[in-house]
């Protein structure tokens, strides 16, 4: 059985003309690199100089980049960040599961499932439409105020619930897009093998759908790391930004916010790069995809 064309094997050395061409390209590439480096350095220096010569710079520097304020606020802000991460971990799992469930509910076929589809659509409309802060107030203070038996009034729990409700609505739409992007021929192939509708969804469609939406999901996860701190509006728990706010008011200085921002970036950037690498290794991302 023929399996492709005959492999080519000869000994070839570049001709003089080709060497000339290669040398020219190398020279030109080197020059472009130098120009790029020089102009980048030039523009950066220019911007830095413009920044530092502004008349308000000394005060801005003291207000935003005070070493003393940073040193004093760092421990508390770091403790707050730890809360952000813990809340993020729990809510991330909950929102992925809930979002997937809602997405599946939205695409259940047939007239018998119409109420389920309608409910899922209403869920998405409601929780994507409502501002997260409003939802936090409604759930965190409103539900707590009802004093229902068995419903926890803990701000941490209610805040986490509000976050989950809001984010799962966005995630549901991401998953739905993923599901709809799987070619109907895949479903046909699954059914043709005798798989039930549910098995086809679970074994053929969802695995492909989920892999496709890893990049937009990463987006939502990165956003969640920061928004997880919004639960602080309910009083407890205290997150990084809240501690920054406390210290900022105490010192009449903005550096604690800068510290909080830096800590968030320190966490978010490696996390997304790591997830990228893992996703690429396991074939979740299309070849050559760069994020």
């Amino acid at each position, binding site marked *: *059985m*023929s*399996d*492709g064309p005959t492999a080519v094997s000869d000994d070839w050395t570049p001709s003089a003309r080709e060497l000339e061409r290669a040398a020219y390209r190398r020279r030109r590439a080197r020059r472009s690199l130098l120009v790029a480096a020089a102009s980048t350095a030039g523009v950066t220096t220019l911007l830095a100089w413009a920044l530092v010569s502004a008349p308000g710079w000394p005060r801005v520097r003291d207000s935003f980049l005070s070493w003393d304020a940073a040193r004093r606020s760092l421990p508390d802000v770091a403790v707050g960040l730890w809360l952000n991460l813990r809340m993020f971990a729990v809510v991330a799992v909950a929102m992925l599961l809930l979002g997937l469930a809602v997405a599946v509910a939205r695409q259940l076929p047939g007239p018998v499932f119409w109420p389920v589809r309608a409910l899922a659509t209403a869920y998405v409309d409601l929780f994507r439409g409502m501002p997260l802060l409003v939802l936090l107030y409604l759930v965190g203070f409103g539900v707590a105020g009802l004093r229902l038996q068995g419903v926890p009034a803990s701000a941490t729990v209610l805040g986490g619930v509000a976050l989950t409700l809001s984010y799962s609505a966005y995630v549901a739409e991401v998953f739905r897009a993923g599901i709809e992007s799987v070619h109907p*021929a*895949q479903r*046909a*192939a*699954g*059914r*043709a*093998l*005798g*798989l*039930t509708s549910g*098995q086809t969804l679970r*074994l*053929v469609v969802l*695995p*492909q759908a989920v*892999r496709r939406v890893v990049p937009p999901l990463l987006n939502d996860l990165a956003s969640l790391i920061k928004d997880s701190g919004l639960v602080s509006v309910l009083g407890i728990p205290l997150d990084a930004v809240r501690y920054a706010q406390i210290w900022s008011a105490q010192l009449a200085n903005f550096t604690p916010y800068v510290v909080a921002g830096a800590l968030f970036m320190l966490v978010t950037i490696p996390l997304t790069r790591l997830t990228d690498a893992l996703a690429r290794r396991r*074939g979740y991302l299309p070849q050559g995809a760069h994020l």
Partner: protein
Amino acid sequence: MTPGPPLLRVAGLRKAYRGGDAVLAGLDLDVAAHEVVVLVGASGSGKSTLLRCIDLLEPVDDGTIELDGREITDPRVDADAVRARLGMVFQSFNLFPHLTVLGNLTLAPRRVHGLPREQARERALAVLDRVGLAARAGAHPDELSGGQQQRVAIARALVNDPVLMLFDEVTSALDPELVGEVLDLVRDLRADGRTMIVATHEIGFARQVADRVCFLDGGRVLEQGPPAQVLGDPVHERTRRFLRRLPT
């Protein structure tokens, strides 16, 4: 005509897609066990539609389809169970990209037929060997050539030991030099005694492999008979015109 009751009996099948004219208009077709029926016809003549209706991938507008004496178009019938007994191979292979070749092959035996993992694996490897691709069991579909992918697709349908296999233009998406390996495989399956319905454009292949050739036109089987007759000396003018237009 082969003796015994037909394995598959299609009677008065009617199918129109939403908003369009009827693609199938009262089509009748019998297929006996171990018979290879080749469907030929122009684009849009309903070959694919017929196969999809038989595999219960499309609802029929009217008519009946009986498999082994039981009407499968009855809404009370478990369509999944029927499909588990049929094997369909598509023009665009439709392998599952997130699974390896072996994964593609063991999915239905384990999930539909309930085989334990080891047994499914053995059976899958045996079939892979049969189609000459045992060495690629751990590869992913995107690492294979078109011809290899289609052979895996055939193996995937084969591994469930279907009573009837349906081939929907399985070589139309392949480069010409890869067509041969797929057609060789189908020829082998015929030698094994598989009952098959093959929709194809390859007239030369039809001549070699068919027990009976059916020419579809106007939503029905216009003419059917041994390949030498239908393809060599057709009765109807429309059949003649169709054959004249083909390269082979």
